[in-house]
């Protein structure tokens, strides 16, 4: 296709992405390299309903003047990336020198917020993704072999968890798993432990979040694989049956290779989405036990009385993009190979 036609076709799409994604990413990248100017502080007499006292406050005009001269702030280089709230280079170095063994070093590193979040994020990604793919595949296979009148309702039910927005879905489940809620108390009865609480223990919270993640994302894999299964060429399948292949061998040597591009696609999307998990953590109020990279960003930007930390959020966002990039390398290599084979 000639270049001019290509540009003409892709222009609206590209324009929207450049304006609303590329430029903000670039601006976030820039912002992460700067920190704010030193605030000019002075003591003032502050009066409120409860009395008057002398407190420090910011001299807004003086600080504004400083800012006007250099609006971006003081250039900090990559220091924001290496400060304690992110990669914590200095703290890790100290821990390395001071630690009394691997376990101690590990617990010191886990004490740092970024690594704590990273641990959960990586665990979540690498547990949820394979489960989603395998479960989705199995359910698709199962549905495919059902009687046709059963297929419709089964597809309907299997799609349900994906339909509800995560914030609300996790909220509903949060109400139900509470120790006094229906799931919570049933679990207590099953395990005969009156103190069992899914919310109190970190391990159980992680498991709960992971189970929720699998529950919510499996329908996506299911529907994509199910559709793919419809298009497996019957002749190849029949030929393999004639050759005496068992059911399992059929699946392994015919179906799976045929569906491989789909499997790659689903893996791609799942890795990216699971790495950016954060709505279930908010919905389940689980931040005491589990935090994720996107949750840290959310916390920085929330402005809950804290002043919004734009630079810090920007740095964590950049680190998230890099993290996703690293995760995706194997998948991208496969896509590259496929593309090359196609265009030849």
């Amino acid at each position, binding site marked *: 296709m000639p270049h001019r036609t290509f540009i003409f076709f892709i222009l609206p799409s590209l324009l929207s992405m450049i304006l609303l994604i590329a430029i903000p990413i670039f601006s976030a990248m820039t912002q992460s390299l700067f920190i704010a100017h030193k605030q000019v502080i002075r003591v003032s*007499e502050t*009066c409120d309903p409860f009395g008057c006292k002398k407190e420090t406050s910011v001299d807004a005009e003086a600080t504004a003047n400083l800012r006007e001269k250099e609006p971006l702030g003081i250039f900090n280089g990559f220091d924001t990336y290496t400060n304690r709230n992110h990669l914590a280079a200095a703290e890790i170095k100290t821990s390395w020198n001071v630690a009394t063994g691997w376990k101690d070093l590990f617990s010191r590193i886990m004490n740092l917020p970024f690594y704590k979040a990273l641990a959960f994020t990586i665990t979540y990604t690498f547990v949820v993704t394979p489960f989603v793919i395998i479960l989705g595949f199995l359910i698709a296979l199962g549905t495919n072999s059902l009687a046709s009148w059963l297929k419709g309702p089964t597809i309907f039910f299997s799609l349900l968890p994906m339909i509800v927005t995560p914030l609300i879905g996790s909220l509903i489940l949060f109400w139900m798993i*509470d120790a006094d809620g229906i799931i919570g108390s049933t679990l207590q009865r099953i395990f005969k432990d009156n103190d069992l609480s899914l919310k109190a223990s970190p391990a159980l919270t992680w498991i709960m979040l992971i189970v929720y993640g699998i529950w919510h994302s499996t329908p996506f894999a299911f529907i994509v694989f199910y559709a793919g299964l419809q298009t497996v060429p019957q002749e190849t399948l029949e030929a393999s049956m004639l050759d005496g292949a068992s059911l399992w061998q059929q699946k392994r040597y015919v179906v799976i290779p045929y569906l491989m591009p789909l499997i790659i696609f689903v893996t791609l999307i799942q890795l990216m989405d699971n790495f950016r998990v954060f709505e279930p953590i908010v919905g389940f109020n689980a931040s005491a036990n589990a935090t994720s990279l996107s949750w840290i960003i959310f916390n920085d930007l929330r402005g809950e009385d804290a002043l919004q930390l734009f630079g810090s959020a920007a740095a964590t966002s950049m680190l998230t993009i890099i993290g996703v990039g690293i995760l995706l390398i194997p998948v991208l290599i496969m896509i590259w190979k496929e593309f090359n084979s196609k265009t030849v």
Partner: protein
Amino acid sequence: MKMLSKITLTSTFMFLLVHATYAACGITSGSIRILANDFPAIHAVLSAAEKCAGGGVTFTKNTTKEHRTLVVAGLTANPAEFTSAVVANSSIVPLLNEGLIRPLNDLVAKHGRGLKKNQLITINGKIMAVAFMANAQHLFYRKDILDKASVGIPKSYEEILSAAKAIRAKGIMEYPFALNTKTGWNLGEEFINMYMGYKGQLFKPGTAIASVNNAKGVAALKMIKSLTEYSNPDFLTFDSNATAALWEAGKLGLATMWGTRGGTILDDKGSTSNITSNTVLASAPTVAGGSTPATTLWWDGFTIAKNISDKDAEATFIAMMNGISTEMVKANNNEAVWLIEGFVPGKASAGVFASASAGATPYPMLPYAGLLHSALGSELSEFLQGNESAQQALADVEAAYTASAKEKGFL
């Protein structure tokens, strides 16, 4: 005749014209755009303010949980997206730091005659906000449970610990106590409140250097830990909704909760009359033999944006004055502890008044307090879960705070 009818017609027309552009509060034109948090007391104020709309005056309000994320960007734009932001001691700070709100001295002189002196929030003599309600966390107790356990009304946290122990020993309740210990803002607030009871200083005076890792900080943390031992193990997910729900279900004998919950708890919905009639609101407890209640006092008020026209500023001020009028208070007496003329204190406001009279400290309006609050909220859960020592937790807090303060230019 023709002349007369013409005059009559014209004058009627003029009369109607004048009235058409004369809104209910005496404002002729202007745009009022308010951003606020989302809870009942604020709804009451804004509905009263909304009566000023019409006849050339446009009124929009945005009450949302996300207000803190929107407010700085919203007021920085020129013209500002919002003409007024409803704030509290903590949320006014970013607006002051960035210089986004205007002094109200002239507007108060012109339209604010009914205001009481303690409603004016001033910095170096400039009125930056007008407060209309007060709030604080304080003690709630169940008279019948305390009687059953044969304990007196606890006045300090040490007495609460022994009362809770007695309640548990008598088999009345396994987890009789709760406070708002949800990781994040709530947990940070509980620490600050307790630390104030020990008369601790959050920062080295006159500087932005945090100073919580000391004997008083450790003692405050350890007190919170002892209290959580009498709380349901899920305590790290307890925000004020959760504790209020527990109270209304009759699962608590003692709790530290926000005064504004009093109205909802004492009403006749959502709970049994036994629980409601036995609930008493009292001053926040003291701790370690001190005399300062271990709590912080909060106010909510409105501000007027700087980057708007003077006309809009005046219209907004008049509308908000209408919103915090005595009529509004009379109609919504129990929604909050109003600072406004005409408020009749009742059972629901007893706790806040008692804490204020006992000399509780207000939440600090320092430019960098929010950063420390945030650091406290995220780093203290590990100590409460028993995973690290109090000193380590407080050291982590100071380190996290220092990193954010450097980024914001305070250090």
